[in-house]
């Protein structure tokens, strides 16, 4: 089994995935599964459903790797979009709505509202970010990366100019780099 610290160049990884290499898939899982799961969980807030969606997402990635076009984005971005869309699709499912309803009754808190336009930082479980980032940076990362807002949607949602969205996003990522030494 390939350890996470081993490095495979993206182009090689993609070629190996296209050749349906088990080792390449293992590498993919080791290096990206947790990040992708976090994205999914942020939307669904349910362990079981999130794991189901992760499975569906990896199956989709595995099946559709030939459709990946490196000229339109990185492999991670492509996978991020798949997971985010799968999670959003799941929020429309009957099962998710039933679960959300039950959870709302139990906690007297509308978890479902997290997926709606109104931003509620208390419901995004980004503990590390919460502790280390300014609230406006947390917001922009949540909207852009977790919820998949476009810059226009984010600008509209936050009621800030388009240019501010870009600069704030960059500033947030620079802060993250400092935190994780990247």
């Amino acid at each position, binding site marked *: 089994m390939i350890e996470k610290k081993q490095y495979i160049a993206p182009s090689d990884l993609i070629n190996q995935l*296209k*050749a*349906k290499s*088990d080792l390449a*898939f293992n590498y993919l*899982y080791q*290096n990206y*599964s*947790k*990040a*992708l*799961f*976090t*994205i999914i*969980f942020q939307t669904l807030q349910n*362990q079981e459903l*999130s*794991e189901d969606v*992760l*499975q569906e997402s*990896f*199956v989709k990635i*595995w*099946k559709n790797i*030939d459709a990946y076009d*490196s*000229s*339109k*984005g*990185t492999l*991670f*971005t*492509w996978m*991020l*979009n798949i997971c*985010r869309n799968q999670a959003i699709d799941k929020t429309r499912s009957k099962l998710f709505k039933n679960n959300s309803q039950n959870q709302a009754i139990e906690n007297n808190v509308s978890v479902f509202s997290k997926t709606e336009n109104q931003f509620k930082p208390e419901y995004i*479980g*980004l*503990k*590390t*970010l919460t502790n280390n980032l300014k609230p406006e940076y947390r917001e922009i990362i949540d909207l*852009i*990366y977790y919820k*998949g*807002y*476009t*810059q226009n949607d984010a600008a509209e949602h936050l009621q800030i100019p388009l240019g501010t*969205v*870009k*600069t*704030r*996003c*960059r500033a*947030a*990522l620079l802060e*993250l*780099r400092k*935190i*994780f030494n*990247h």
Partner: protein
Amino acid sequence: MTPHELINSGLLELYVSGTLPEADNVLISKMADEYSIVHEEIKRIENSIIAALENENYTISNQAKNKIFETIKVMPLNDETKIVSFNKNRNIINWAAAAMFLLLIGASIFITILSKQKNQLAVQKTQAETDNETLLSRNTFLQTAINKAANDLSILRSHDFKKIMLMPVSSNNHEMACVYWNPITHQLFVDNCGLANPGNGKTYQMWAIKNGKPINVGIFNKNMYNKGLQEFASVDVVESFAVTIENQNQATLPNLATLQVAGKI
């Protein structure tokens, strides 16, 4: 836009998030291919966001992980699988074609055998028909012979017929014949079993003697030698009968040289 302007614009962060329009993505990918500084910056952004996400306390259960790997494992490999599948189908088609070919050969052999058997049966049928005809013919012949024998027997047993023995006229001759004559109906039958075969070009001729004059009764049927009684034309009151041996043409009058047997009533 220069690479540095692009890096500082904040567009690369949006590029990594996958929220830019496709045209912008294509443009940035081209810049990343051309400028390593852009490429490296994208990698750094990606690594930062992945690190941030991984630092959250969410964990994937081993059960879910195993399920993912098991699902991937049982999935069709790639398009080659389809090709294999197609080949399998083709193999099935090939097998089916081979089976059909063998079936055709088998059917041809079967038809040939049947055809041969049919011809043999036709020959046998013809033979059987011929045999049948022969048997029928033989049966008819035998039936005729039986009828004749029965008829001859009835004559021999009948008290209405007189039996007249025709004895040889010379001591060198040992031939004889027997005449059965009905004085009432004048029917005349001759048993020629005592006469030798007259030989090629010769025939026996029957005569009735009435008032000392010979009357030609007829010649013996060649096919009737040793085959029971031969009927001749009716003759009325006569004194005796005689048989001569003649050339195939009937004689108008008998002579002593050709007289073979004779007998009085």
